[in-house]
């Protein structure tokens, strides 16, 4: 029997009942009295241009148009829609060269979709018609779309402080030689018997969360600014909006709506500034902004595409002596996460294998692409695509089995994790590799593939990854929890942790219920109210279960300490002599001397005076537990993914036959939700490897901003999947849990590429690996599979 009552159980998701009937309120579902509608006029015909004429006169003639705001009608304070600027100290931000380079509306269009002005009208339809009547004339400017175009001499410079459009490189002051790693990789490389080296391109992938962004903002009678937002970082949104409009945080309230998926797209802010600016122009009236899908596609941040060079050196016996790499990320039109992603891309690289020496250079370049930002994995899938393929290329030449080599050389307990000095406290990657290889019948299939013939070719591939549970010590890791004990002993847990759908609120309920000895329904989570919830950095970096969970445990300990103190008084014995038994506290030396926690809570609130003794009936005061928790570790999880593919060498089509996903989870708090993260993550990793990319024409205009033209794996396309969760409780995680959120996406990327390599003997240096690329490569390599 399990030692836990709710941990590790597939309890119903706390939001599931409402969701299956469609009752939760997403931002777009809100309707308010006197509501106006905002429509943002965006530049759709140019990727880089200057506005030469902006004329509202025709639009203002349409009945129902209330106001139109241009670039000069709103605050000139600049901001960064990302969140990295709020998560590092000013000193580090300065060293990194972080920029706040965005404005609410602009005369300088830096990417297709940049916002020019905002129309406020009495209906959505009128706002749309008026937006079409706004006259905007442009002077086109030189368009540049890639890092190599961006850094060319003579290219238009997007920001005066960033020569050659280089938005970021690892700063020398923090990373000597602008390089992250250990040892002298260039020197160490000279010792190698075998060197593999290549240039790769990683693709611009879109999160494609199902809910298009929508917002409402309103200034109330007291002048308070309210914003209904589906952001995944409500407290960061709170801070950013207050600062942008120069208001104290007490005069801004963020109401979090149900979040229809995020995957990074809702990290930081998106169109909250435009919506709030419009609301401030019409005090008292709520203003709603509904983003259209095609609009959402080009204005919200995507994954960083980029050019990735890597060089690996090995001894004949497989010993990895050196790794050198350089990632030139495409940050797009604005700074956003230009410093965060190129750092972590190298950090994940450094956390994986025991190279003798490693040197990684990370950079970001501006371009006229839509801004890049956070996307599930945050640099990790990019590294996975490149590193895992190059490893396999070397292993083919060394004639070493890919699973065995990874067993021999992956980092583990006691080694430095992705951030030096923070050592891995737990690691079950070897077990993941062994169980995954067994599940997919690795040895049998590798042997069979060597003998195959015909136009259809099969291949198996493996890839491993390390990730993180929260972003300490790189970024701030802080969550505040208060637990209010109701007078009947049930609990209200207040925290700003958001749930993007992954189930964090369910897991946080489980943790609180387990810690307090309560049933699931005796715990309520109070979230989504910036007036009530203390600080939380937001849902990102696979942190909510780990950091939010530990914060709840800390606050629960505070509650339990108070309960014990009071029980000691009620039962007239020492705290040391007391023990919890479910919802009862009893004396160890006399179990009949006991009191329920509900009774303690009741007496604390209804603290009447006993008329006979003149004394209060119990210890006075309602019990509140509190925690302002800073994460002490980041307990990285590992994982290994195994894939089998079948490739039609006449059509280039790659069919995924099977995907085995193993994960080093610490302890599983909710098996079905953990499995859901792995399977759902795989769907996105498959997309990155095989089908998903935003394509642009030569003028920088997006070609596939729709679900028809942007290809994602659907219900019929998904392979047979098996998820294996390998448990070994982590010393730091809540009940031993490590993260599972982002991990599911990462390792399928490299595993698929390696399976294709195993099938065809060809490596693909540009993701995604489309049928066109497969056919072209077969032809170029002069291969004949008939």
């Amino acid at each position, binding site marked *: 029997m399990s030692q836990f009552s709710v941990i590790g159980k597939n309890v119903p998701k706390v939001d599931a009942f409402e969701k299956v009937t469609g009752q939760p309120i997403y931002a*777009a579902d809100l309707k308010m009295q006197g509501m106006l509608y905002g429509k943002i006029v965006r530049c759709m015909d140019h990727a880089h241009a200057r506005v030469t004429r902006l004329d509202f006169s025709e639009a203002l003639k349409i009945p129902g148009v209330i106001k139109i705001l241009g670039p000069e009608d709103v605050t000139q304070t600049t901001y960064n829609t990302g969140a990295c600027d709020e998560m590092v100290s000013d000193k580090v931000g300065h060293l990194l060269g972080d920029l706040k380079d965005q404005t609410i509306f602009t005369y300088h269009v830096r990417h297709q979709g940049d916002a020019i002005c905002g129309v406020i009208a009495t209906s959505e339809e009128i706002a749309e018609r008026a937006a079409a009547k706004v006259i905007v004339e442009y002077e086109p400017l030189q368009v540049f779309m890639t890092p190599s175009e961006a850094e060319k001499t003579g290219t238009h410079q997007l920001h005066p402080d960033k020569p050659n459009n280089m938005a970021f490189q690892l700063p020398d002051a923090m990373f000597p030689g602008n390089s992250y790693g250990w040892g002298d990789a260039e020197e160490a490389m000279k010792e190698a018997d075998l060197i593999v080296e290549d240039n790769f391109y990683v693709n611009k992938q879109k999160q494609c969360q199902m809910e*298009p962004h929508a917002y409402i903002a309103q200034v109330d009678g007291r002048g308070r600014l309210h914003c209904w937002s589906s952001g995944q970082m409500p407290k960061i949104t709170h801070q950013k909006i207050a600062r942008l409009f120069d208001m104290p945080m007490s005069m801004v309230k963020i109401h979090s709506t149900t979040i229809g998926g995020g995957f990074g797209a809702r990290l930081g802010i998106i169109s909250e500034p435009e919506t709030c600016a419009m609301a401030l122009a019409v005090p008292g009236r709520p203003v709603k902004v509904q983003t259209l899908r095609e609009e959402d596609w080009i204005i919200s941040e995507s994954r960083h595409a980029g050019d990735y060079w890597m060089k690996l050196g090995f001894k004949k016996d497989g010993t990895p002596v050196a790794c050198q790499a350089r990632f030139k990320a495409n940050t797009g039109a604005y700074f956003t996460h230009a410093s965060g992603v190129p750092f972590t891309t190298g950090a994940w690289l450094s956390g994986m294998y025991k190279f003798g020496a490693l040197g990684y250079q990370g950079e970001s370049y501006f371009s006229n692409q839509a801004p890049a930002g956070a996307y599930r994995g945050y640099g990790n899938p990019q590294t996975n695509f490149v590193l895992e393929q190059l490893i396999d290329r070397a292993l083919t030449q060394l004639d070493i089995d890919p699973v065995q080599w990874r067993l021999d050389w992956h980092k583990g307990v006691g080694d430095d994790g992705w951030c030096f000095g923070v050592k891995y406290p737990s690691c079950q990657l070897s077990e993941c590799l062994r169980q995954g290889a067994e599940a997919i019948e690795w040895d049998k299939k590798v042997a069979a593939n060597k003998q195959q013939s015909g136009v259809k070719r099969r291949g198996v591939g493996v890839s491993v990854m390390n990730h993180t549970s929260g972003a300490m010590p790189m970024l701030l890791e802080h969550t505040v929890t208060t637990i209010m004990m109701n007078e009947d002993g049930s609990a209200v847990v207040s925290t700003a942790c958001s749930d993007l759908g992954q189930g964090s609120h369910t897991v946080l309920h489980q943790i609180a219920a387990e810690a307090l000895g309560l049933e699931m329904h005796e715990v309520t989570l109070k979230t989504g109210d910036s007036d009530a919830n203390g600080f939380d950095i937001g849902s990102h970096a696979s942190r909510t279960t780990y950091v939010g969970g530990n914060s709840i445990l800390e606050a629960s300990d505070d509650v339990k300490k108070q309960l014990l103190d009071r029980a000691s008084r009620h039962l007239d014995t020492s705290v040391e002599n007391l023990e919890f038994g479910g919802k009862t506290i009893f004396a160890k030396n006399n179990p009949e001397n006991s009191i329920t926690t509900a009774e303690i809570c009741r007496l604390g609130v209804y603290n009447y005076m006993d008329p006979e003794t003149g004394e209060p009936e119990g210890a006075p005061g309602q019990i509140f537990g509190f925690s302002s928790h800073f994460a002490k570790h980041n307990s990285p999880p590992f994982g290994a993914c195994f894939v089998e593919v079948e490739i039609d060498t006449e059509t280039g089509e790659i069919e995924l036959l099977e995907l085995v996903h193993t994960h080093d989870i610490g302890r599983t708090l909710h098996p079905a939700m953990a499995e859901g993260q792995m399977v759902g993550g795989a769907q996105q990793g498959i997309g990155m490897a095989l089908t998903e990319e935003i394509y642009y024409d030569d003028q920088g205009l997006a070609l596939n901003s*729709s679900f028809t033209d942007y290809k994602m794996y659907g219900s019929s396309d998904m392979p047979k999947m098996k998820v294996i969760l390998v448990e070994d409780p982590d010393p730091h995680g809540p009940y031993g849990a490590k993260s599972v959120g982002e991990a599911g996406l990462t390792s399928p990327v490299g595993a698929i590429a390696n399976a294709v390599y195993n099938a065809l003997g060809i490596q693909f240096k540009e993701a995604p690996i489309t049928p066109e690329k497969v056919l072209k490569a077969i032809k170029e390599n002069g291969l004949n599979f008939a």
Partner: protein
Amino acid sequence: MKERMIELTVNGINLNISVPVHQTLLDTLREQLGFTDTKYGCGTGECGACTVIIDGEDSLCSCMALASTLNGRSITTAAGLAEQGLNAVQQAFIDQTAVQCGYCTPGMVVKSTSLLRKNPNPTEEEIRKELEGNICRCTGYDSIVKAVQQAAQSFPEENTQWDNAVELKTGAHS
């Protein structure tokens, strides 16, 4: 703006309403009648978030139909399926943890119910085929397919326990 009177039955309620002739059924449901359980995902019939059941069995993307052309028709949304308590599909979505962000869920539930009403015993392939027009970016579809299979098994009333396929294995150190 030209309007047309239509008679529309939504979740069993008979309504006589005037709708702009160019208004989609999605907008009529959400904006005019307040049935916000039907979701806007793309507006172009690509994602299935706005799926509703029409005349009890077939499904359609409500963003692709003009309300003014649906005079006399009957519409069922996800909320309408739960009027006598959750239907078997909805219960199965909860049991199989087939719900994550929930935005595609009403459309998925409606589409799956439509499938099971037409074919109460579908193969896994038929289920996956039927759901091709409904995009979910959270689950990877496996839990949804399992939910439809569970619902099919217990259709209309049986309540079968479903064995979850996730495997928990003990690590070497524990």
